[in-house]
Structure formats: C-alpha cells, structure tokens
C-alpha cells in the first residue's frame, strides 16, 4: 500500500501514521519551510530544533519525507506523478486552499481512478460553516466536549475546559484512517477510488458519550456545572500522589470499606447507595481523603484491584514510563531523531499475532528523501536542479 501524506499539522499526519504503522509505504510531503508540527516540540532539553520536535518525530516515524511546495505551479507535475503511484492521498488542507494545492479530488481521481483521496477539514467540505477557521481548541469547543468539563458547581466562574494536547486532530485522524481503510477495501474490490470526507466537528460530536442524547431524549443540555449523580467516582490524594477511585457497583463499595477497615460506613444512611453517596459527596470526600492519606498510590491501587475494585492511579508521565506492566508488554519503543537523540515513544496499541507492528524507520529530516523519491519517479539530476531553483522542492 502506497500512501501520500499531504498533512499540514496533526490530523492527516495522524491518519497516515496509522497506515504507516500497519506497513504502508508512506511519503510525507512537507513545504520547504517544514511541517507545522516541527515547530511544536517538545524539544530535547526544551531548546527549539525543527529536526527534534517530539510531535513531529512521533507522527512521522515509519514514513519517508520529501519537500514540495504545493502552492508553486512548478510542483504540480511532481505531485501528479506521486499521485499516480499512490493508493491513498491524505490531507487536511482548508477547503479554500485545496484547489491552490492541486488536491481537488476530481482531478486526482482522473490521474489515478482507484485512488482513495481523504480530506480532513474542521467542519466538512460543504455547509454554512465549512469556511470557518479553527484550531484544536476551537474544535474541541465546537464538538461539545469542552462544555462538559470543568470544576463542578462550585467553580461556575471558570470556563469550560479543554483536554490536554491536540486531541481534535488525533480524533479526526483516527476516523480518517478507519474511513480510508474502508474505502481502500472497496477500491480493491471494485477498482474504483473515491473521495473520503471527514469533518472534525462531526468526529467529536460522535464521542459525546451520553451527553448529546440528553437533549433529544430529555430536553437537557448536560454541563460541567452539574453534580456527579453517583459516587465515588473521583480523585483522592494519597501519601505520594493522586488516585482515582471508582465504586460504581454496591459490592465494590462494600469491598473497599472492608479493605480500608471501615465497614461501619456501609451502614450509614447518608452513604446508603451510590446516589446518596453522590448527594452527600462533600462530606464523604473528606473522610475518604483521610483514609487515602494513609496509603501510597501503588498500595491502594494494587490492593483494590486484587479485590476487583477498578481503581486507577493518576499516572504521571514518569509513572507510565516506569510501569512494569507496560514494560512487560513492550509498549514503549525507542527511535532516534535525525540529530541522534534517542527518543522513547508510545508504540502501537494493538498486537496482530501474524503481522506485528514494527518501528521500521525514524521520522525523516526535512527533505531527507526528496531526491530518492523523485529519482524513483524518473526525475534526473538536471530536472531536480531546475525544480530546486524554482523553489518547488527544498
């Protein structure tokens, strides 16, 4: 499978990463100034270096990289030859720039009729808001998830809260990889490619859990200001860090009380069931924090899990990297940066018994494979020189 990644930031790069991780040959197309994620970091020791940006290194491992300025007319024949040799083209170019970069689906499908062209945009390719600009924060708000998160009824002055990271981009990328693989299966069967259109806002509305349906079913718009109806389902502070306690079922609550040596609480009426524990959480939380303060996170986590109570540590990044469980599964992998830094990155979340995931190559330096890829397409040295002089390649 040959994939052309014309992503500009997170979304399409993340979709192409899924395919690269599954063994596809992916060529990442960057403008001569470099992909947007090269400027994002995190950087080794905190020092800016476009060849060592963590987000870029993570999203683009297992890909080769070329520079090609799609806005320059001289680049068009190169793009077209690349497209003709591809099964999938992925991009996240804004609707009003698609034609300027030569990425119109109709045109690409003329060049390669079995091509899958996947276009990820903030709000889709049509509709009254399709022309609006949006960064990740705006999309997280447009998808309705931010409205659900905050400090509860006592913190009404604080705004709806986003999640850490470029999550709108990651979600759009995952949806795009699902849809693209589906379209690829169809293309293999029928010989016909097609345009796959992904709206990031719609991806996020599709993961509102039970929040969205509250409106059509009950006329309610859930918000961060609501009190949690059932408890305990919350954060407590242990001796050495935070733990998340979770007693959804009555037996989990009773077993927890036995574990911490306070079975008498199970008899107290104000904590009689999970709804009452929700109503009276302010009082209960104080007691539970006193108990938690006597435990370390690891002790309480493993002791609870040994009794099948689904507690979890509030993992720091250091905790994740040190986890014996994740080490035993070989989850983290190490890859070099083009500068030679050894970088530990999350591996693949799935293990195919027959076709195991591998880190085959590090992320490319800017333009590392331009000559290699273009020569393979038939360009000779003088043509490469002409393209370089025109600014079409870096």
């Amino acid at each position, binding site marked *: 499978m040959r994939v052309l990644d014309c992503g500009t930031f997170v979304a399409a790069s993340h979709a192409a990463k899924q395919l690269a991780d599954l063994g596809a040959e992916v060529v990442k197309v960057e403008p001569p100034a470099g992909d947007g994620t090269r400027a994002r970091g995190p950087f080794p020791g905190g020092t800016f270096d476009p060849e060592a940006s963590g987000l870029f290194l993570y999203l683009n491992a297992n890909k080769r990289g070329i520079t090609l300025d799609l806005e320059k007319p001289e680049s068009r024949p190169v793009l077209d030859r690349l497209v003709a040799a591809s099964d999938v083209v992925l991009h996240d170019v804004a609707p009003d720039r698609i034609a300027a970069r030569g990425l119109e689906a109709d045109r690409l499908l003329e060049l390669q009729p079995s091509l899958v062209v996947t276009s990820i945009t903030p709000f889709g390719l049509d509709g009254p808001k399709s022309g609006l600009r949006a960064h990740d924060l705006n999309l997280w708000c447009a998808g309705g998830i931010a409205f659900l998160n905050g400090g509860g009824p006592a913190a009404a002055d604080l705004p709806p809260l986003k999640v850490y990271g470029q999550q709108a981009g990651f979600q759009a990328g995952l949806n795009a990889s699902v849809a693209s693989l589906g379209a690829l299966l169809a293309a293999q069967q029928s010989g016909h490619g097609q345009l796959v259109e992904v709206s990031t806002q719609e991806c996020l509305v599709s993961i509102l859990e039970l929040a969205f349906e509250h409106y059509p079913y009950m006329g309610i718009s859930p918000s961060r200001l609501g009190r949690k109806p059932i408890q305990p389902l919350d954060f407590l502070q242990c001796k050495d860090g935070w733990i998340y306690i979770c007693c959804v079922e009555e037996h989990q609550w009773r077993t927890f009380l036995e574990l911490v040596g306070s079975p008498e609480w199970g008899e107290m009426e104000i904590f009689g069931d999970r709804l009452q524990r929700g109503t009276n959480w302010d009082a209960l939380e104080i007691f539970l924090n006193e108990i938690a303060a006597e435990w370390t996170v690891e002790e309480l986590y493993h002791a609870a899990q040994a009794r099948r109570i689904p507690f979890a540590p509030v993992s720091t*990044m250091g905790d994740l990297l040190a986890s014996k469980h994740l080490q035993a599964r070989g989850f983290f992998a190490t890859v070099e940066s083009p500068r030679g830094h050894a970088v530990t990155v999350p591996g693949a979340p799935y293990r195919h018994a027959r076709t195991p995931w591998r880190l085959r190559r590090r992320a490319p330096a800017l333009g590392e494979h331009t000559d290699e890829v273009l020569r393979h397409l038939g360009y000779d040295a003088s043509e490469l020189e002409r393209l370089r002089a025109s600014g079409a390649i870096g």
Partner: protein
Amino acid sequence: MNRTSGTPPLDGVRVADFTWVWAGPFCTLQLAHLGAEVIRVETAGRPCVTRLLPPWPDGQPGVNRSGYFNQYNQGKRSIALDLATEAGLEVARDLVRTSDVVVDNFAAGVMERLGLGYEACRALREDVVVISLSGYGATGPEHGYVSYGPAQVPLSGFSSVTGYPGWRPMHVGISYGDPTAGLHGAVAILAALLYRRRTGEGQFIDLSQWESTMTLLPEAILAETLGAGAPERDGNHDALWSPHGVYRCRGEDRWVSIAVATDDEWRALARLALPDLEGDRAHASGVGRKANEAEIDRRLGVWCAEKTREDVTEALQALGVAAFPVMDARDLHDDPHLSERGYWVELPHDEVGVRRHAGIPYRLHGTPLAVHRAAPCLGQDTSAVLREILRYDEARIRALQDAGVLR
C-alpha cells in the same frame, strides 16, 4: 464526485459482537457504518450497562429506551442468548462459525473461559479475525485488572496534565479512552481484513485500551523522555500559542473559544479587540504574548463579556482569526450547519419513536454510507438471525425458547 455508487466497503462482512458498555460497541459501530452486518450478542439477565443509564424519554427507564445505548448501536442487530447455558454457547459457536470478525471488550481471559477464545473460534472458522479490546491487554502482570471507562483517563496520564492551573488533576468530560480504543480497534480489524484478503489468513488481535489512550499523549510523554519536563496543568492555554482561551460572553453560561497560532492572527485580533497592542513589539511574538498572557486574557474577557458568542465569532472569523462558540447539546441539536450537512440520523424506533442521533462523521462519496435502522431492542433479531443466518428450523428455535436459552 459521485462517479460510482457501489456497495459499502464491508458489505457481506459479518461481525459477531460480544462487546458491551462503550469501547467495544463504538468499535463495532464503525464496522456497521462501513456496511458490515453486526450482530450483538446480549443477555437479558445482564443487559449492556448503557441500556441501564439515562437519558430516557420522560425520564422513564427501560432497557430499550436509553439514548446512550441507542446512539452507539445504530444499524446493528441484537440477539438474546444465555451464555451461562451450554445450549446458549452452542448458538454462539454457530454464530462464530458464520462470522468474519469476532469482537469483545471483556477483561482478558473471559472469552477463553466461555470457550470462545481465539483458538476455539479458529477451530470453528479457520480464517476468522478475532479482536479483544481489554483494559490492560492480554499479557503483562496487570492483565487481569478491572477497567472502567472513567478510570482509563487518569490511568493513561490524561488527568495529570489536564486541569486548571493550580488545581488537582481533572477529568476530560467523557470516558475518552473508550471511543479511542474503539477506533483503534476498527483500524486493527480493517488491516486484518486487508491482510486476510491477500493471504486467506485470519488472526488474533490483542488491543489494550490503556495503551490506545496513551498513544494520544505523545507531547506530554515525549516532553518527559526528551528532558523538556512534563507539562503542568494549564487550563485552556497552549505551551506556545497565545492568546488561547475560552472567554465568557453575554448570556447564561455562554462562552467563546479564541485561539491565535500565528503573529498575523494576533495582529488581526489586536486591531479589533486590543488596538493599543497591535503594533506593540513586546507582544509581536508568541513568546512575548505568553509573558503577558494573564493580562491579555483579562482584557479579552472584558472585550467578550458584553458581546454574544456569535458576534465575537463572526467578527473574528471575518479577520481570519479562529474563534468558535462553546457548544452544548442543544446548540448542536439546533445547529443549521450540521443539519444542512445531513449529519443526523432520525429513524423510527419501537419504544422511543424518532429522535435525533449523531451520525457518521466520514462521508464516502463513491460508496455512500448510511445508517439503515435504529438501534435494536434487546433480542429483537433473535428469531430472524437463528432462522436466516444459522438456518435453524422453527422446532429448534422453539425448543431453545422453551428452555429459556434465548433471553
């Protein structure tokens, strides 16, 4: 662009769906969206958790009335089967025999105990693709641990970096690990189907929800491994871009998001909202603006406070600045953009009537996708599946009914 209108990609693919709650059903929802025939195996004695949770019309509970279940099981069929009986397990085995894909999201080992682990499935159908989306994965010292959706968020590291500055770790608003694992599961299954088409071979896929969620935290994890220091909880701020926040507008709990990524966007914003800062050199770069972020936030808050979020959005978008209202469920439900795009699914359901559900977020222009029926009532398709797919005769179905196996 509708040059072809073929059948959807997974037309003819059958999925035996042993999942429940959210992660697993969200995985099989993607397969249903792509045209697969997804058959959920349910048990009346222990219905899916989402059947027991709100929202319900008129606040009246009922296993077929939950909007949560009905959202994530659109387009699927449901059979009711008592898997505690040998006769029930035999029906399940017959279903596996005729399925291309088997999916579960129980804790590791549960399918093996039911006699439906990968080796058993493979004995029933040589080229079957089996995926288990367990909380911790099928191996490793904690593989038997219990995993609930809300606990995956702190476990995977999201809570330690999400939150208001100076506050405790926080949640993210949804059980974020669940849909993420569901999507990764769909990717893994589609890849296995591509491989099967090429080689004729099925395989087992071990997916860990915990690992799936962590793959979306590369910036925080790499900050640690690159020696840049793990990020602090910093509300709606961004490490580099500024301003970057959510500001209160006119109305009750109405807010707008504004995000500035480039210096050009900043100048456009400043010209309109903070004109004295437009040409100010101290604010010309992201680094400079980060240094004065609290004051910029305060002043933007004042600027937004008397305007509606729609007015702020319109004024800033006209200048090329990314601004958008913070949407709630009603806003989304009534949004003309989503309606005009045909995003919603509104199909008749026996117990809740016609209600609006979130649709398919990806459009395949050549082989259009659609949800063809509302989520099933519990066991709605038991007889039909046993008769039409498993080829049981009426007498056999009746005997199973009489023995109490089909519930």
